[in-house]
């Protein structure tokens, strides 16, 4: 058995999602290799090589891989697939972008958003916005999985795997990168933050969202999230969206402000360790999952909370 894990990184540093997917790979069993594809791969591979229990780290370097073009990733991973029984990718937007192409080219099913490895061929994944968990057994010789990183503990460091480079595929002929606008933020990454402060439709405007949610997040060193309703209404950008169709988070502390708790939002945060809800509606469904509920208008509660935090 050998398992290939596709590393999550931003062409600068390795992301913790990689460590978590390595844990899922180790649950499948066999040798675990990591593929670092993009630019600046030598430095990222050096970090990946430190993850414990990893056999080797492969690097592939090209501009198109750095741009995350799905066609380039497909060609690279399909080319390496012969040596592996399973290919695991973090279920990030980038992972979701290319992994189904790999599965289709290999003529196997993709098992999306895996949250538990039951055995080397049996996996659990959420369906219906997390209202149900499906256990599936694969009959494919090769398994292609996207793995929800928040469902696995990060693999410990302490390894010293060897690093090998592999050749990058030719540039895709029919897809061209134009530009990219990545929001640079001093705040922690939403998927990796220990504390997340999220705002909902009750904010009423983008200005109010910024005025209420962001200072509280900054005070706590937290990432900022939003409900789908707040994103739909234009109060917050899409990459803040926590929920089944947005990001799935599981921080130590999740603070939901003015969020009613629609099922699709709960699907994105209900695995948080401690959940706080601040909402003026005592019947809001969010209180059914909150460890600590404060029935109050956020307009008074958030300033009081800021004060109480000192």
């Amino acid at each position, binding site marked *: 058995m050998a398992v290939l894990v596709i590393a999550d990184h931003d062409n600068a540093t390795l992301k913790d999602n990689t460590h978590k997917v390595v844990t899922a790979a180790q649950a499948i069993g066999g040798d675990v290799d990591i593929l670092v594809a993009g630019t600046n791969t030598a430095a990222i591979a050096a970090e990946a090589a430190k993850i414990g229990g990893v056999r080797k780290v492969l690097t592939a370097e090209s501009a198109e891989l750095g741009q995350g073009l799905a066609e380039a990733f497909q060609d690279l991973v399909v080319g390496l697939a012969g040596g592996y029984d399973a290919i695991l990718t973090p279920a990030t937007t980038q992972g979701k972008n290319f992994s189904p192409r790999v599965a289709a080219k290999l003529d196997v*099913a993709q098992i999306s958003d895996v949250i538990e490895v039951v055995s080397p061929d049996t996996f659990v994944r959420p*369906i219906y916005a997390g209202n149900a968990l499906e256990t599936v057994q694969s009959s494919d010789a090769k398994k292609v999985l996207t793995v929800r990183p928040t469902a696995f503990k990060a693999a410990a460091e302490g390894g010293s795997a060897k690093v090998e480079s592999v050749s990058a595929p030719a540039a895709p002929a029919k*897809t061209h990168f134009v530009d*990219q606008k990545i*929001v640079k933020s001093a705040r922690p990454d939403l998927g990796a933050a220990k504390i997340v402060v999220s705002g909902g439709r009750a904010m009423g405007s983008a200005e109010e969202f910024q005025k209420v949610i962001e200072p509280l997040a900054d005070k706590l060193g937290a990432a900022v999230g939003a409900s789908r309703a707040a994103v739909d209404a234009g109060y917050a950008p899409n*990459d803040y969206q926590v929920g089944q169709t947005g990001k799935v988070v599981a921080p130590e502390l999740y603070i939901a402000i003015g969020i009613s708790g629609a099922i699709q939002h709960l699907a994105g945060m*209900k695995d948080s360790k*401690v959940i706080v809800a601040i909402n003026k509606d005592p019947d809001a469904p969010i209180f059914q999952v909150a*460890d600590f509920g404060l029935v109050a208008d956020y307009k008074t509660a958030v300033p009081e909370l800021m*004060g109480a935090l000192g």
Partner: protein
Amino acid sequence: MKVLVPVKRVIDYNVKARVKADQTGVDLANVKMSMNPFCEIAVEEAVRLKEKGVASEIVAVSVGPTQAQETLRTALAMGADRAILVQTDQDLEPLAVAKVLKAIVGEENPELVLMGKQAIDGDNNATGQMLAALLDWPQAAFASEVVVEGGKAKVTREVDGGLQTIDVNLPAVVTADLRLNEPRYASLPNIMKAKKKPLDVKELGSLGVDTAAKLKVVKVTEPPKRSAGIKVETAADLVSNLKTAGVL
């Protein structure tokens, strides 16, 4: 330019799915069904392309039971020109659906396949990318803006941490994300007109596509329930509780 828009009939967005007691799946008996919300966004985008004079014909296609005709009628009422149902009572996996769609693409020769990024039942987020791979077409997944010009689509995509813009040569597959547009409601006159638009029904077997399942559903269970905690009276109470819980 001809646009093909695959649509799926799923449990209505506002209905809470309930797991069957025998753990074989989710209970869909007597449950309201609707067009998958991301498919609605894809139909809307196709209609807007037609209104701009970029698209000449919109063909909606669904793979599913005979009731999926209702979903196709919704697409026709929103502005699609004609519809195809590939009829089957099998619950197909995304790869099988992608293979069926590939066969339909072979018959229809669209220049653009515009579809939702994800269906809210299986939550796989895979069919569009798989179709692109099977066709060896470029893809632009998770689109929040689509501009078609000069044989190319310039697509702004939702990526981790921001937005990316790519150019894809047509023909291509584009999958719609939430912010691409806000779908219209079909007007009553358009709903009436849609009843007269052509809807072609094909049997799945007539396409000669291998749709065998590769996954066996062992069981479907309810997720662990999280119980409600306590209500606190003031912000200060909240902070002291959070300190006790060790998260502040």
